[in-house]
């Protein structure tokens, strides 16, 4: 389905995740974050860049992966993206929601 984000027509799934990463840019990311009540800081952007890189390399995301990423620890991860950090970070980053149970 289509929705308007930052004045543009964007393809998203029923949960609001972008279905085409090529449509993502920083402005879209900011709008998606605002909808989740998050104002992006440079720390948020570091995490977003990290999850996007993992996505581009087709490597699965997990909470343990975040812990060992060297980018951020779990406590800060939860405080930056309250209420489901991996779900929210991937939503804002324009990549699919991780399917893993861990």
């Amino acid at each position: 389905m289509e929705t308007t984000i930052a004045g543009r027509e964007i393809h998203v799934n029923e949960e609001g995740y972008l279905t085409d990463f090529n449509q993502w840019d920083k402005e879209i990311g900011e709008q998606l974050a605002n909808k989740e009540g998050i104002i992006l800081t440079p720390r948020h952007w570091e995490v977003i860049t990290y999850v996007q890189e993992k996505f581009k390399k087709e490597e699965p995301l997990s909470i343990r992966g975040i812990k060992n990423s060297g980018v951020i620890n779990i406590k800060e991860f939860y405080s930056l993206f309250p209420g489901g950090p991996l779900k929210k970070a991937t939503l804002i980053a324009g990549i699919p929601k991780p399917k893993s149970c861990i």
Partner: protein
Amino acid sequence: MSKTTAKKMLFILSKATLENVYAAFVMANGARMEGIESEIFFTFFGLEAIQKKKLEHLHVATVGNPAMHMPTMLGGLPGVEALASKMMKKEMEKLDMPPVGEFLEILSDSGCRLWACKLAMDMFHLDKDDLIDEIEDVITIGQFYDRANTDNTHIVFV
């Protein structure tokens, strides 16, 4: 974003076989990942999973477990349980499942609160020093029920 109405998941872990410990940990971690509060109360043999000296030596049960598809007599032979546990840990590592100690750290850092049962601690003559630092306190079951202080709290016994 999420459709769940669950607000808080309280787990009681009473066993220390790998399959039970991991079931509780994955569910508790999964709740946090979905933005749901979660806590674990370790009681009886569940206390093995939070004792510094024991937590990395947990085993899968090979006897009395028909799903292992192994004759009970064979499952009871020396070394079989250790071998089965080793194989299971290897498979879990492939899926990026952390070992018990690391999993407890992840849970604690994720905001999952961890408690030990007072009655079981007394029964096994354990002291808070025997437990990992992530355990917040030793409490009674009544105090644990008090943690069910919000609507849409669920208590799961493992």
